[in-house]
Every structure is written in C-alpha cells, then in structure tokens.
C-alpha cells in the first residue's frame, strides 16, 4: 500500500512532570506503525502507558520526545481535521440528551448536514434504533457503550480509538460487544486502536496485538494473531486462538518477570 500509515510513531516518549520534581516517564522509545484497516490492540500491565499512547494519538496529551503522525499529519492537525473518533471506558453520554441527540453531538459540533438521518443510521448499526428517544440512564451499561461507539463513528472517522471500552462490562455483555465491534469494523472499514488488559479480548478482536511492559512503558512484542475472519464462537474454541493467547501471555510474563 502506498498510503501513509494511519499511525506512525518514531522514538516516541512521554514524561509527565510531577509535583516536587518527581517526573514520571510514561513512555520511552515507542516505534509503531498501524496501517489502514488494521485492528490493533495495546495490551500490558497497569501503568505501562497504553492509555497514554492512545491519548498521544488523540492529541489529548502532547509527547515530550520523538515523532508521531496520524494520517500522515501532526496529531494536533489530525484532531482539528476530525480524523478519529474516541470511545472511553465510561460511555460519557450527556445525561441531558436523548440517545439520538447524543449520537448527533459530534455532527452538531461539526455543523454537519442531515444529522438526524445519520444518527438514526448509526443507532441501527449498533442495533439500538428503538431506543433513540430514551435518556442514557434508561439504558444498561452495555447499551450505553454501544451508543458511545455509534457516536464515535457518526462522522465517519477513518480511525477509531478505544480506551478499555468494555472494561466495566460483565463477561457475557463483553463477548457480545466484541462480536458487535468486529461486525462494525467489517462494515465500516475503520482502523481501530484498542486498549485493553484482557488477553482473550485482545486476541479475539485484533489483527495485531502490541504487548507493552511498564516502568518505563515500552513496546516489548508485536504479535500478529493470524486468526481467520469472520471470527465467532468457533474462533473462541479453536486451537489457533488458544495458541495465540498463550503466546501473548508468555510475552507479558517474560517482561513482567524481568521488571520485578
């Protein structure tokens, strides 16, 4: 492919200046390339900087060293160009807006035309069409998170950034949401960067799993899952799935052991 990678990081580093001079080095020497259409998970122990890396890509924090490009541009430019959609661990729906009006929010900010039709289409995509007129508090946690995904994709960003989006859901809902997300990924062709600390989740969803280690946060392994698509319950029962889980787990253990 001649198109530039969606995310390209070179020797990227981030140091948080703490109070009283104790700075925290969150990320060191990150090299990463993510191509269009990929589904990449960032996995690692707490404090490995995986969320920080996502927030650097989103231009919600600024790097202290190295280079980072999103869609071939400076991340700040990419944010102003609305190149990505973001989903947080909490759905972060605005309580005072109905479900449909929450999905319309980014379109309103961007002054886009045909907002209502677009919102309806997006809600159909996440199978919540009949809940358009409800308020967020009337929905379950899983439904709220589906609304957040619909909202993030409403303006058709080429890149979807997800920060532990299913972390607070129960296991059953979580597996349904994973299935749902893969379906949406297929239908929209969006590139996804997905932060998680669940190994099975990372393996089931991703084309590539990026394993990170902590103190300072760095990339220790990049593992291509190689599992065939579409993925479903059979995938979860397959030998290749278990083998990849073992591979990721081993990679995590190796570096965890080295750190302590």
């Amino acid at each position, binding site marked *: 492919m001649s198109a530039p990678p969606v995310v390209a990081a070179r020797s990227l580093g981030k140091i948080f200046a703490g109070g009283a001079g104790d700075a925290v080095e969150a990320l060191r020497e990150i090299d990463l390339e993510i191509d269009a259409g990929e589904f990449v998970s960032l996995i690692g122990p707490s404090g490995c900087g995986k969320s920080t890396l996502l927030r650097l890509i*989103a231009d*919600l924090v600024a790097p202290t060293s190295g280079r980072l490009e999103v869609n071939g541009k400076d991340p700040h430019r990419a*944010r*102003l*160009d*609305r190149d*990505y*959609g*973001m989903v*947080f*661990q*909490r*759905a*972060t729906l*605005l*309580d*005072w*807006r109905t479900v449909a009006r929450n999905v319309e*929010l*980014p379109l*309103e*900010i*961007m002054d886009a035309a045909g907002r209502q039709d677009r919102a309806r289409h997006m809600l159909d995509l996440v199978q919540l069409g009949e*809940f358009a*007129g*409800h*308020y*967020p*508090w*009337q*929905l*379950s*946690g*899983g439904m*709220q*998170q589906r609304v957040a995904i619909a909202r993030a994709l409403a*303006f058709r960003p080429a890149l979807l950034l997800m920060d*532990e989006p299913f*972390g*607070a*859901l*129960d*296991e059953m809902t979580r597996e349904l949401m994973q299935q749902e997300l893969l379906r949406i990924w297929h239908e929209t062709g969006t590139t996804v960067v997905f932060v998680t*600390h*669940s190994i099975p989740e990372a393996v089931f969803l991703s084309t590539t799993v990026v394993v990170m280690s902590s103190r300072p946060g760095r990339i220790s392994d990049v593992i291509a899952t190689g599992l065939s698509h579409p993925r479903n319950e059979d995938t979860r029962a397959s030998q290749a799935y278990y083998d990849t889980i073992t591979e990721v787990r081993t990679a995590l253990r190796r570096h965890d052991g080295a750190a302590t």
Partner: protein
Amino acid sequence: MNRASDGIGRDEDIGETHATDALTAFEEALPGGGPRRVGWLRAYGPAVVAFALVIALWEAVTVVFNVQSFLLPRPSLIVERFVATSGVIWLYGWHTLIEALGGLVAGTTLGVLAALATTRWAAVREGLMPFAIAANSVPIIALAPITNAWFSLSSPVSKMAVAAVVVFFPVMINTARGLIEVDPQEVELLASYAASPRQIMRRVRVPHALPYFFSAVKVASALCLIAAIVAEYFGGPDDVLGRYILRQASLLVLPDAWAAILVASIMGIGLYGAVLLVERLAMPWHPSHRAGDVG
C-alpha cells in the same frame, strides 16, 4: 481484569425514588412529575396529619391556658383576621412581592453573569471567588439601612437592592461550581471533536450547571422575601408587609401581624413552587424526575 465492579452503568434503582417526604411529593405532583399519582395520599398524609396536629395543639394550649393574644393568638383568631383584613394585607403583600421579585431577578441575572465570567477567565475566578465565598457567609441583610440611604428610602429600589445582593452570592457561587466542576472526560470528548470553548460552554457546562443553578434559585426565592421584609423594617412607605407587621406588632394587634406573616409565608411557598415548576420544565432529563419511563 476486575473492572466489572467499576459500575459505569448508572443503574441506581429507579424504583427507590419513593416520595418519603412531603417536599418530594410536592415536587413530584408538579406537571411533568411522572405518573405517580397513587402514592399521593401516602406521601402527603403524614405531613397533613402533622400540620393539623400542631394547629390543634396550638389552639388547645392557647384556650386551655388562656394565653393572651398579644403573646400568642389562637390560630382560629389569626384566620379570622386574615379573612377580615385580606384586602389590605394582600395589597401590601403584592408591594413587598414586587420588591422581592425585582431583587430576585436582578440578583440572579448578575449572579449568572458573574459565574459565566469566572468560568471563562481564570483571573476573574481567582480574584472574585474567595471574595464571593466570604461575602456569602456574611449577614448581608445588615446592609439594609445602607441601601436605604443609597437609594431613596421611598423607592422600592432600595429594598430590591438588598434582596439582589442577598440573592447574588448563592446564585453566583453555585452556578460557577456547576459550570466548572464538569466531568473532565466530557470536556475531553468535546476536545476530540475539536470543539471551541464556546461550544463546550454551551453543550457541556451550561446544561451541567442547570441543577446547581436551580437549587441556588430555590434558596434565593426564600432569601429575597426575607430581605425585602427586613429592609422594610428600616423605613420607607407604609403600604408594604414589613412595615404593616411592625406597626401592628407595636400596637399589640398581634393577630393582624400574624395574618400578615401568613401572607408572607404563602407568597414564599408560592415563589418556591414557581421555581420548581420552571426547573421541571427546563430539565426534563433530570434524575430527580425519574418517576418512570420518559421514552
């Protein structure tokens, strides 16, 4: 991996919002207050019974112990005078209400503008907020003789000024808090859409501040009446509630003074109810209205 207990779903049991006290019931009985009509009697019953008991006890004590009416008049006598003097006391009440409302509107408007300014400019916030918080804990009502001197004693503006100052601080502090203390993640979400500060203000901060604003205005609706009446005690035209109460009390016509106090109470409750009604209409989404399915 044990994030399951983090609880992003705000599934507090909606059925738990049973009206256990009369105030809640009062709020729920307002238009838009949901379909809970069945619990009406159950909710109001205890309050009505308690009220009746207190009045009955009051009546009994004054009769049995032959309490002089200049000390504590019988409730039945107060009601009698309330009816007999209703032409005068409601007219005077109206004059006082105008002063209180003028102060409420002026104080609320200025309070909201100041709150917006403190949110917009950090320098204003740092310079003004400590002062405002300090001023809020000062008995501002003591200013009444001074505003009477500043503005003409005969003008209702002098009373409105006291009411406005009394209203200003709680409205400003509460509204500013609502505008500032938003969920940082909501601001980040808007930032991810490259939203302008004005868009963030309008779509996140202002809606978030509405409940704070309304709880301040509810408090202010009582404060503005108190301020107007107390300011009247310090002088001014005689056709107002405060001066009437003062006059009747000094003449030892206490049942008439009590009848006027009853008018002030009714106006205070009415004002509070009006604010509740506006709040209900302005925030149909709010959790306190979660009586049933809105969808």
